[in-house]
């Protein structure tokens, strides 16, 4: 997949930082404002897809190599399982091994903030991997998946 014209590349250079920062803010402040892990992850994936469409397949793969896509996804699932299940050691359900602070602060809410970050990474990498598998690697000519 090749890139697009110069106008699209210039606008992407200006706008991509804002998209990624807004997606990260939606993920991290998920327990205080609307959004959360799923919405922020989809926005991060949209930023990566914009990078792929504007600059071509090779520029996106320099940022994020193919071998790392499934690794980041696995890290997301295992981290979420670890956060949820590790409370069972002390006899509590999830959320009680990190204390709830005062409300309306950033570091409050127990495990909710860390779960939001992990789910945001997972959903963002998942949508970007689906896009690469269906739309970017279909144009490949008779070459296998390089591992």
């Amino acid at each position: 997949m090749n890139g697009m014209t110069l106008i699209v590349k210039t606008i992407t250079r200006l706008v991509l930082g804002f998209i990624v920062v807004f997606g990260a803010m939606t993920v991290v402040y998920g327990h205080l404002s609307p959004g959360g892990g799923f919405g922020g992850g989809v926005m991060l994936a949209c930023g990566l897809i914009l990078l792929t469409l504007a600059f071509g397949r090779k520029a996106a793969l320099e940022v994020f190599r193919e071998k790392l896509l499934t690794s980041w996804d696995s890290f997301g699932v295992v981290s979420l399982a670890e956060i949820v299940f590790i409370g069972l050691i002390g006899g509590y359900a999830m959320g009680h091994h990190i204390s709830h602070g005062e409300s309306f602060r950033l570091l409050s809410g127990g495990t909710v903030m860390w779960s939001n970050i992990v789910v945001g990474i997972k959903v963002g990498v998942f949508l970007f991997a689906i896009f690469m598998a269906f739309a970017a690697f279909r144009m490949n000519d008779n070459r296998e998946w390089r591992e």
Partner: protein
Amino acid sequence: MLLLYGLIVFMILGAIIAIETKDLLSSVISVGAMGLVLSIVFLILGAPDLAMVQVAVEVIALIMLIRLIVVREDVTIAHRYRYGDVFATSVGLIFAGVFIVFAAIAYRGMPSFGNPLFRVSQEYISEGFDIANIPNLVTAILLEFRAYDTLGEATVIFTSIVGAFVILRKKGRND
């Protein structure tokens, strides 16, 4: 209220246009417009989390659909009416009519919009902030009270991406 009903009528018209038009690009654009109007309907009904996710996912789905259309050679659908179509359409309409009648009868017994039926839902709304100290109630229910369901959903997403990679790797090898 009038705005809500107007937008719902717009969505129905968009769905009918998406099915009945012969050009594939027109139907994809109509699906995209329908998704955008759905996110406005979510905002009117008071769900900003759903509206944000709906806009972003609609953009991604539209990009992938347009890419699939551009790759194909012919972008129109040729449809010949056959004899079995009349029977299939009439049976479908009869079953849809029976379902709508029974749904309308069952709808009168349900509680109104905003008063939940189960006791647990009422306790989440009234005591959720005191127990968990998290202002966003939707995130609190997803990740604090019902975190095991979120873990199951994350597992389903992970299985689907592994399955997609396995299938596409085999396709790339045989071509």
